[in-house]
């Protein structure tokens, strides 16, 4: 890696493992998550429910709650290992350098505190010299930037007086008012209806340009991902199976799981035709897999798939696939001829 590329790298997660010891055994929530996020880029973290997307986000912030723990790996943020940082250093980073938008905007706002004060609080937490009044003025300005009409009045409202879309804007204002370098958005739109979804996504795009922040967008909505992300990392059962630019991954998926996932999108399927589904079930996370986690469901399973964990093979400059099929081979790009159609009508505002 050249020096300029290294400087371009904002977040480098390597072999991250997270475990949750429970009474019934240890849950291996993350089993070696590896991905990179460059400056000013939006990386989509995709995968089905329970594959570890949110745990990854919390691990980056070092907010895995007891008894869960990060057992191995590296999280390099601007070249600095977050797993070696002290709790006080992490508190400094959270909210000022790395922020996170939570899933349920209405649950993420304190019902006893006015919207504007919650936005101001972020500033006050990180800048002790700021006056309450100054922080409030900046908070209101931020709300206005987010396209909230009559931001003054809105700032004085309690969360229960806000609509879902407004609450999400307040939440975004809270997380972006400090202009963080990295914004983690954990399914920021899944609690909102489709029109508001499009507005919020558009808003995030605009803000991203203005604030020069990088975004880690966690989603299971491939349509949202196609529309907003520059690059994608696909997760399955606690590990990243494929990552690359959004076009490459969606058009020429190389990992059997990604291929299967994209085939499940019901396009041009006649009403009487059964929908495609990947056979088998998501593996139990109580046992750490010794090989590829997808092996039991894979149609192209080979002997080594169950014996050892496949490393990420680099197929081209920006396309990594963790699958033994690609060992020593170049990608066979036009492999899937049918390009999956991702609902564009859902995204036009």
């Amino acid at each position, binding site marked *: 890696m050249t020096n300029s590329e290294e400087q371009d790298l904002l977040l480098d997660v390597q072999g991250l493992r997270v475990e949750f010891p429970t009474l019934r055994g240890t849950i291996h929530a993350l089993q070696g998550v590896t991905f990179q996020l460059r400056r000013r880029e939006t990386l989509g973290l995709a995968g089905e429910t329970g594959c570890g997307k949110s745990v990854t986000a919390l691990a980056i*912030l070092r*907010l895995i709650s007891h008894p869960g723990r990060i057992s191995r790996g590296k999280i390099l943020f601007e070249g600095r290992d977050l797993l070696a940082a002290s709790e006080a250093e*992490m*508190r*400094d*980073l*959270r*909210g*000022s350098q790395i*922020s*996170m938008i*939570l899933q*349920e905007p209405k*649950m*993420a*706002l*304190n*019902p*006893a*505190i006015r919207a504007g004060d919650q936005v101001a*609080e*972020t500033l006050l*937490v*990180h800048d002790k010299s700021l006056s309450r009044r100054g922080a*409030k*003025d900046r908070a*209101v*300005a*931020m709300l*206005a*930037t*987010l*396209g909230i*009409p009559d*931001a*003054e*009045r809105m*700032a*004085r*409202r*309690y969360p*229960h*007086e806000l609509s879902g879309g407004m609450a999400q804007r307040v*939440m975004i204002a*809270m*997380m972006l008012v400090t202009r963080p370098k990295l914004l983690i958005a954990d399914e920021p739109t899944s609690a909102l209806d489709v029109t508001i979804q499009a*507005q919020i996504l558009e*808003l995030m795009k*605009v803000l991203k340009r203005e604030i020069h922040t990088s975004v880690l967008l966690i989603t299971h909505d491939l349509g949202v991902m196609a529309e907003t992300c520059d690059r994608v990392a696909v997760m399955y059962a606690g590990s990243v199976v494929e990552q690359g630019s959004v076009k490459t991954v969606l058009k020429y998926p190389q990992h059997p799981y990604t291929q299967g996932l994209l085939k499940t999108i019901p396009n041009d399927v006649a009403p009487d035709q059964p929908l495609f589904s990947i056979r088998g079930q998501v593996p139990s996370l109580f046992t750490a897999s010794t090989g590829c986690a997808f092996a039991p469901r894979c149609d192209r399973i080979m002997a080594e798939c169950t014996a050892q964990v496949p490393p990420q093979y680099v197929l081209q400059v920006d396309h990594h696939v963790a699958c033994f099929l690609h060992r020593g081979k170049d990608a066979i790009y036009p492999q899937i001829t049918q390009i999956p159609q991702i609902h564009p009508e859902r995204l036009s505002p």
Partner: protein
Amino acid sequence: MSTPASSLDLTEARRRRAEARWRYLRDTYVLWRRNRFMVLGTAIILGLLLVAALAPLLATANPYEQILGDRLLSPSAKHFFGTDGLGRDIYSRVVYGARVTLTIAVLVAAISTPLGLFVGIIAGYLGGAADEIMMRLADIFLAFPRLILAIAFAAALGPGVENAILAIAIAQWPSYARLARAETLNVKNNDYIHAMRVLGAGKLTIMAGHILPLTLSSIIVRMSLDMGTIILTAAGLGFLGLGAQPPMPEWGLMVSDGRQFLVDQWWVSTLPGLAILVVVMGFNLLGDGIRDVLDPRQRQA
């Protein structure tokens, strides 16, 4: 769809903020008006404050002056509430007693609620050993009836109104601690507390800035409902000779003084007793009402 931030000029912004604040107050007034019992409670408590403040003007006689020739006179135009066994004007003593009662109630609340909040929120948020130690300590206090505990402390500290205040506060804080802890446990796993951790807020900021406001409304309601009990306990201690000492015009003490004349000169005990009744009722009605007003769900956008 977005307004540039620069278009919002600051003086205009502050004016609107002040306007919105005014609207909030007006809503509060409407809620208050709608609740007839709360209006009554407020009137009683305002009356108490007024009487306490204007005691020297309202009193018709020196509350300490004994005119032995005028012993046990029945209520009349000269002595509105009659006179007691030492010939003191009961009306003037009840008026001055409002000061004593108010002082006791306010001081007990001022000592016990912050203590209870402090202990409760720390125990609830930190959990673990801190929680165990603090709450078992509170349990020890809660194991005794509150009046008995206050009597025990008052007896140990010695009679006197200051010690009575301390004794009642000591008996009172564990229930606030418990309430604050319960509220803390209720809110601490919410997404918005989590969001504060995501923002890099420390434990202290979260406890003081985000959990405290959420526990406050139930503590205020509980405190205003407890005001009555506090006054009753203080009167009880006075009655038993452990609280205010003669010749202080304390209502409980006055009820106690009148006991021996209860059959023939009913007014000596009854009228200070009625004062206690009215004030306790006033606090209870007010407390009930405050609970409704502090509930943000009652407000309409």
